[in-house]
């Protein structure tokens, strides 16, 4: 007799994804070897009422075409602000320094016109709240065609066809009919699909999903994540998923970058990270999440305190005040982010040294 998932008529999985070669294939016009996105020493500061808030304090990472990077962090880690920097969406009160190169072209310092070209064409973003991203007074189809025609020289009829095609790609049933509907007539999951459709309107090489599934039900979340994966395989899009959910990252991302208080504190590919978690903050994140395989009423190992005030940059490690492994030298100097093991970077003077398994299972 079929097992539980078999009983549910599970879709054949695993085999429909071609070898990762499809994803790694460079997009059109892409030189092999040149990373799609290269962020170097990105710093973002905001001036507010005389204070300077250091939202992002020097982060560097690359995204290869077709791959998935998860940026993990809590509120105040700087993950959203850094994503907005990549899109050139930061307001003028922000001071951005460092370098963001997309296909070799520098984004920092570009004018508004070039940035508009860049957004949607090269990079697109999917936000957390579908309600906020869709215009409630405009038909869903028109919002897609608007996005399409902003970057591609298509006529109205062609744009409409493309929009319906996109709606089908994001697996919205009865696409022709849905074209004429308003956002409030769609469910949360469908709205998010529409947003994905808009984001993909011009087939950007990079998609940034900022907590795109956080506001969704867990079943819808699964559907949307599967959709994103399939689209990646189909279109070769690279994906940067921003989240606080390490388990989600583990399931879907190849590379994981953990941010805290504006800095990257640990960075590795998913297997390495979970094989041996080094940074105590990452460890704390893992431990603090309730897990289905734990017994009920077990107290979670918890780290007290709050994230630091970003307007005052203390000399030592920003996590030191809360870190269970902290030693006196942690507050004295900021540990640099270094590749201590091949492919595994961390910024800690006293990392978790035991081969602590990061897996959330036995």
């Amino acid at each position, binding site marked *: 007799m079929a097992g539980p998932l078999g009983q549910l008529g599970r879709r054949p999985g695993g085999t429909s994804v071609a070898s990762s070669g499809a994803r790694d294939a460079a997009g059109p016009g892409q030189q092999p070897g040149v990373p799609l996105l290269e962020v170097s020493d990105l710093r973002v500061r905001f001036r507010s009422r005389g204070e300077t808030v250091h*939202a992002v304090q020097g982060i560097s990472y690359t995204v290869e075409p077709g791959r998935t990077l998860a940026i993990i962090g809590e509120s105040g880690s700087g993950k959203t602000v850094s994503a907005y920097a990549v899109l050139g969406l930061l307001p003028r009160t922000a001071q951005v320094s460092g370098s963001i190169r997309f296909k070799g072209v520098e984004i920092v310092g570009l004018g508004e016109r070039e940035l508009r070209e860049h957004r949607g064409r090269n990079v697109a973003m999917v936000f957390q709240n579908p309600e906020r991203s869709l215009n409630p007074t405009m038909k869903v189809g028109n919002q897609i065609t608007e996005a399409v025609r902003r970057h591609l020289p298509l006529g109205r009829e062609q744009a409409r066809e493309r929009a319906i095609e996109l709606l089908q790609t994001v697996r919205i049933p009865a696409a022709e009919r849905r074209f004429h509907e308003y956002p409030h007539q769609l469910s949360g999951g469908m709205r998010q699909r529409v947003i994905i459709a808009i984001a993909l309107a011009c087939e950007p090489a990079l998609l940034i999903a900022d907590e795109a599934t956080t506001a969704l039900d867990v079943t819808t979340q699964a559907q949307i994540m599967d959709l994103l994966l399939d689209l990646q395989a189909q279109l070769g899009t690279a994906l940067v998923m921003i989240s606080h959910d390490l388990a989600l990252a583990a399931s879907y991302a190849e590379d994981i970058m953990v941010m805290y208080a504006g800095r990257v504190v640990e960075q590795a590919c998913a297997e390495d990270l979970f094989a041996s978690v080094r940074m105590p903050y990452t460890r704390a994140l893992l431990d603090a999440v309730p897990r289905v395989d734990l017994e009920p009423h077990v107290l979670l190992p918890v780290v007290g305190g709050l994230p630091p005030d970003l307007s005052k940059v203390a000399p030592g490690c920003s996590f030191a005040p809360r870190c269970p492994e902290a030693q006196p030298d942690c507050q004295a100097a900021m540990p640099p982010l270094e590749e201590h093991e091949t492919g595994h970077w961390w910024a800690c003077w006293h990392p978790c040294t035991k081969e602590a398994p990061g897996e959330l299972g036995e």
Partner: protein
Amino acid sequence: MAGPVASLVLGLPDAAGGSPQPQPQSRGRGLLRTLEITIPGALLLVLLFFCFIWPLVYPVPSPTYGSVLNANLPIWSPGHIFGTTNVGYDNMARILYGGRTTFEVAAGVQGIGLVVGGLLGVIAGYAGRIVESVLMRVLDILIAFPALVLILVIADSLGQSEMHVIWALCAFSIPATARVARAGTLRLRDQPFVVAARLSGVKAWRIISGHIVPNLMPQLLTFSLLGTGIVIIIESGLDFLGYGIPDPAPSWGGMIAYGQTVMSVSLSPLIVPSLFLFGTVVCLNLLGDGLRGRWGVR
């Protein structure tokens, strides 16, 4: 879950840092916002001072006593900065005392509107059902009348006096404030903190006085302030038409009416009171707007 910075700067809803606050401004905009409040506020205070306090300490000529010998003096005349009327009354004094009337009426009307209208609106909003329906229908009737006609009818039937003008204008301010108060109360009533108070057994009147009214005050106050300009204009309109403050008591509207009749001969009797009226209303509106921004009222 956007962090405190993302929520502040990018306008994203914030997860753990608190309710969204107004965007940070560059220093320039912050300064402008403060000026928007302090300058009109200061001007109004100066005007109030001169209207109410100055005549008590300085021998300002009476606005309703004068010698015909001094009639029709132009502005900048010695002893009569704004000139005199056709019967010799000092215009400056008339401006000041007229201003007193204006402010007294405005304060009276908006004050009564705030208290009575606010109370009615809050009760209607909180009690709901029958009480709300009855109260709102009564107020609806008042609002349904064209405001000016209603005011004229009241003013005409009650006779001319400052108090009657105040009553007449209250027919306008009470329902307007009640509407705002009711809408605000409806919004607040469903807020979890009010539900929580009900769950904790707090009595209705305590919820209203402790939770609803304090959270409603910024909205009501700015509404009242912004409405004061309109009230002043209507009051002046009544005086202009001869329905408000009876002659010879001074009023800006009356002075404007008079200025209109001698317009071909001399412009200053028309311009001076008009400027005062205009300036006062603009200051009130700027102040109201500025406070609304400062207090984050929608």
